[in-house]
């Protein structure tokens, strides 16, 4: 494909088309609306369906319903809408229905500053719904990666039967870069294969990899799906001997596949005693600071996280053993830094935070090396 100038939100839309997304339901909200606009135009061309729902709660419900019917589905929103979606995100996690939720983060809380950037939903992406549950969140740092991670989001959501949050931000979402997208025909997404007969099919049974295959409605596998605690065929149950094995599978299924889920980039230098750790738009700041620091002859490590949740404990712990100080720039008051501190101890972590809509500057990161 030819090189095109496009913004991150466009790339997300194209990533969805390339990944085989054939249903989008959403509600307009700045700064995510371009995703809906492009999909309202492109989905019918490939036989897909777009609907603008009455709110974000309905949007989230509709994409789950459509995936139950067999269509790969997505919605896109920003902070306030993401808050409204939380109950049904929990439903998708509980019922193990694959879906992709794009959150182009804006400044909050509340209406905040709709056009200002933020990374304030890191913890909401992990713990926004009630109860313990597994979740995957990915965060792109460029326009091209917005495309790639959208494709990955669909692949992971199918493979692991989980909602996947694409934790984008206003800066990457509205930033324009020249990109060359791959040929969509080369993109492969995991497809569920149900080999059991309808009589023996159990949608929530235990399997060696922790992820039972998912049959859509309407093709002969009549079964029950509920947000209640359920047994392996989907019926509500209060029996601990039925609940415990299922709960164990649900809450450990992602851990078993971290080698596939963990997306990151290590740029390490022998002898470095300080590291930058960042993600999303702030990783661009950190990478700029890295260049400046290295130009001055300083040795610095850089760990960029693309997978935010589940948190990359192994990689961050290893980095903590390499260096004395980890500087974590982010556009919130230190949400991911909490996790880094949990792995390496508070004393090793230096937060460089800003939650007023402005980017962290490279100079702020460089200053943190000194203090």
């Amino acid at each position, binding site marked *: 494909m030819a090189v095109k100038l496009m913004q991150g939100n466009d790339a997300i839309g194209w990533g969805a088309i390339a990944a085989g997304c054939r*249903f989008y*339901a959403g509600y307009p909200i700045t700064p995510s609306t371009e995703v809906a606009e492009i999909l309202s135009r492109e989905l*019918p*061309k490939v*036989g897909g*369906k777009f*609907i603008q*729902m*009455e*709110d974000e*709660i*309905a*949007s989230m*419900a*509709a*994409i*789950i*319903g*459509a*995936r*139950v*019917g*067999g*269509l790969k*589905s997505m919605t896109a929103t920003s902070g306030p809408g993401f808050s409204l979606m939380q*109950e*049904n995100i929990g*439903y998708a996690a509980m019922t193990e229905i694959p879906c992709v939720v794009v959150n182009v983060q804006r400044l909050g809380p509340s209406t905040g500053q709709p056009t200002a950037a933020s990374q304030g939903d890191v913890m909401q992406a992990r713990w926004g719904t009630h109860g313990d549950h597994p979740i995957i969140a990915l965060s792109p740092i460029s326009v091209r990666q917005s495309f790639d991670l959208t494709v990955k989001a669909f692949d992971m959501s199918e493979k692991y039967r989980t909602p996947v949050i694409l934790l984008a931000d206003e800066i990457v979402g509205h930033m324009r870069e020249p990109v060359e997208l791959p040929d969509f025909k080369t993109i492969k997404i995991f497809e569920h294969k149900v080999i059991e007969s309808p009589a023996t099919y159990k949608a929530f049974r235990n399997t060696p990899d922790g992820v039972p295959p998912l049959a*859509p*409605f*309407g*093709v*002969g*596998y*009549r*079964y*029950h*799906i*509920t*947000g*209640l605690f359920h047994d392996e*065929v989907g*019926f*509500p149950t209060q029996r601990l001997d039925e609940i415990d094995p299922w709960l164990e599978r649900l809450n450990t299924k992602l851990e078993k596949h971290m080698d596939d889920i963990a997306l990151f980039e290590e740029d390490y230098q022998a002898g470095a005693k300080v590291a930058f750790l960042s993600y999303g738009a702030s990783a661009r700041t950190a990478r700029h600071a890295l260049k400046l620091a290295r130009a001055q002859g300083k040795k610095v490590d850089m760990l960029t996280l693309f997978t935010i949740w589940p948190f990359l404990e192994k990689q961050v712990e290893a980095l903590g053993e390499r260096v004395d100080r980890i500087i974590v720039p982010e556009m919130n008051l230190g949400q991911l830094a909490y996790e880094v501190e949990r792995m390496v101890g508070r004393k090793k972590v230096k937060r460089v935070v800003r939650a007023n809509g402005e980017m962290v500057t490279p100079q702020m990161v460089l200053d943190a090396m000194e203090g």
Partner: protein
Amino acid sequence: MNDAHIYEAHDLKHDEGQLPPENWFDRSETLQKLRKNKKFPTIWCSGCGIGIVMGALIRAIDHLGLDNDKVALVAGIGCTARMAVYMDFNTLHTTHGRALAFATGLKIARPDMKVIAIMGDGDALAIGGNHFIHTARRNMGITALVVNNTIYGMTGGQYSPTTPLGGRATTAPYGNIEPPFPICDLAIAAGATYVARSTVYHALELDKFLAEAISKDGFSVVEAVSYCHTTFGRLNKLGTATDMMRSLKDNSIAKSALDRLPPEEQAVNTKIVRGKFIDTDRPQYTQVYANLITRVQGGEK
């Protein structure tokens, strides 16, 4: 409609205390729509009307001869919504108030399926009120079955959007001061193409209305008026389940009978009106969208 199968099902309890005949379950085609591997009895209180609505729904689907694989029941949360789990279709028990939004996604993904949303009055009209009117506005090809027992039963008897004025509830200890929603009027105003109401006393009429509603292409609504003797009945001293059932018989009137009354009597009617209030056709959403895809793929800009 042919009611033979209904009487066959009724044959089960013709004599109180008598055990069901051998193989009674297998002998009834209608009962085959119940899930054999689901543990019964149901969660409903003895004497509840919701089971009657479930029977009517099963008989309606059976009467239409629908393939079980092509029927989806999408339920919200509440006593009524628990209905879905007992029936052998594709059943999706969702979150409170959102059945129609889930059903919308499912219907768009599977326009070939009959999608039936099962909700109580609080589910459909309070927390789910916005979805109710927008699903009607779009004329989405879904049947909304609203069981109206005028109370939040599962949580113990709080007032709902259909609790009558003055009715007592655990959260209306001095009587309800909020006027109730007329469900059928709301559905018609919002654009539903089929709207009917009956009660759990008039079970065969419910069968008929449900069969008609499900056979519609567009958005259809059936309000099944029931009662909750456990909460509303107790708080308002309305007696037993039998008393409340009898009250549905005594305090309801067929629309055809009401229409024959002089206008001044019609104006002061306080009885529940049973009947079909609208039966019309307009373009159904998934068909309109299919046409849009054809237009776009044909090169229309």
